[in-house]
């Protein structure tokens, strides 16, 4: 039984760590907030989930649910956080519109008659440290 547990942990923990590392690399190297958000969410959901499951296998049985609760909570909250940050980035012109394949929100806003900000297409300044 211990051997089975150890195998599960040995597979899940390094995989989770790899996902965390790749997410962090993406967070560092991707060009704008939208793509950084995308990379960060991978580390936050899949990376943390794998590590928590791998760790909970090693726990006494009545402590494992706490880790699973953390994993469940993270699974629920990460999409919410990403959506809110993405929306804020869109409204404060944090997205690089040259990187987008389409902008359905702008099309819809134009159709509804909402004035579209003309400066929305300008890319963010890379060294704009004040904001």
């Amino acid at each position: 039984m211990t051997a089975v547990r150890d195998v599960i942990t040995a597979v899940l923990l390094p995989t989770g760590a790899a996902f965390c590392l790749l997410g962090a690399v993406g967070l560092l190297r991707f060009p704008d907030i939208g793509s950084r958000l995308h990379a960060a969410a991978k580390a936050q959901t899949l990376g943390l989930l794998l590590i928590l499951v791998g760790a909970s296998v090693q726990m006494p049985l009545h402590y494992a649910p706490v880790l699973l609760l953390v994993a469940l909570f993270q699974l629920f909250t990460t999409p919410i956080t990403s959506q809110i940050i993405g929306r804020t980035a869109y409204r404060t012109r944090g997205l690089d519109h040259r990187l987008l394949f389409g902008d359905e929100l702008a099309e819809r806003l134009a159709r509804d008659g909402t004035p579209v900000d003309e400066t929305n297409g300008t890319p963010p300044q890379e060294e704009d440290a004040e904001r």
Partner: protein
Amino acid sequence: MTALYLVTLAGVAAAGLLTLLRLVRGPRALDRVIALDVLVTMVIAGTAVRTAMDKDTTALPVLLVLALLAFTGSVTAAHLIEKREGMR
């Protein structure tokens, strides 16, 4: 088995360091919010690995609190940034 835990911890720590670099660089406040969120996630992951390694369950409630704080903190910060930049 200990080597495995150490490799995992090293990976998570490296991820945390890269995230910290993004936190320092910015360039916008939202980038820092994302980086802080990921950093807290890395702390959760590292603490979970340590808990499994030492078979010491003292830090388990901390994980729950951290998960809760990361969520509320990021949402609040994003909201405040939107309010501030909307004024300009």
